């Protein structure tokens, strides 16, 4: 027990020399080694951040591409007469990564917006009876009529999908007012 309680490095007798020979730890060197390891970690962190920045630029490039696509025409495979008043449907426009909502208010009034919240892109839940599109992520909401933010973190209005409905109830989407 006595032997255990004594740390070898604190021993001053000859036994100390033997221990040092067997385990030659250079404290200064070891300390420097640890700091060098830390330096490497910080540089690796910097590399990660730089990669993140490049990823953001790539995401932005993709967004610009979607923006270019967003004036293509697309006929929805659902007829307006199949949708009840106050009901909404989900479709993707201008590409499969861009969910949009179509909300039927009445036969003569149909609204459509991007489903991505303009705060952090969470999917919105339409609440036609309350006249808003609700974002459950941070409790944000958009006005159903205008797409403007009502409350919560979102500051920008929702991109509005431009569409036309013909006499037979065929819905044609042909653009986005402000692509995300």
């Amino acid at each position, binding site marked *: 027990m006595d032997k255990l309680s004594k740390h070898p490095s604190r021993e001053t007798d000859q036994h100390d020399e033997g221990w040092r020979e067997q385990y030659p730890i250079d404290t200064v060197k070891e300390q420097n080694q640890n*700091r*060098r390891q830390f330096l490497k970690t*910080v540089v690796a962190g910097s*590399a990660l951040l730089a990669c993140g*920045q490049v990823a953001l630029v790539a995401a932005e490039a993709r967004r610009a591409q979607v923006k270019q696509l967003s004036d293509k025409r697309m006929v929805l495979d659902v007829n307006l007469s199949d949708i009840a008043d106050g009901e909404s449907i989900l479709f993707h426009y201008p590409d499969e990564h861009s969910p949009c909502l179509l909300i039927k208010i009445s036969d003569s009034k149909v609204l459509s917006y991007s489903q991505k919240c303009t705060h952090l892109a969470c999917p919105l839940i339409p609440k036609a009876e309350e006249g808003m599109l609700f974002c459950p992520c941070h409790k944000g909401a958009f006005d159903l009529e205008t797409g403007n933010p009502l409350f919560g973190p979102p500051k920008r209005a929702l991109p509005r999908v431009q569409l036309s409905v013909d006499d037979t109830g065929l819905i044609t989407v042909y653009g986005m007012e402000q692509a995300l």
Partner: protein
Amino acid sequence: MNKIKALEKQNNILSFKITLAMIIFAVQLYAMAMSVRYYMAGESTALWPAALFSILLLVVSISVAIFDRKHKEA
């Protein structure tokens, strides 16, 4: 005495390099946070310069680390 001075110098250089790398990391972190904020807000003009700036800082940081290795080997 000379050995102690050399050790001290080495220690100071290493401290300086670590400080520099950490400052670079902090600036990059700030640039990243700002970029994400602007990206979310739909403003993209600052993204390219921010990415270039970050890469430049990374190059400086890597140079510091490589210099450190050379210094260690010398």
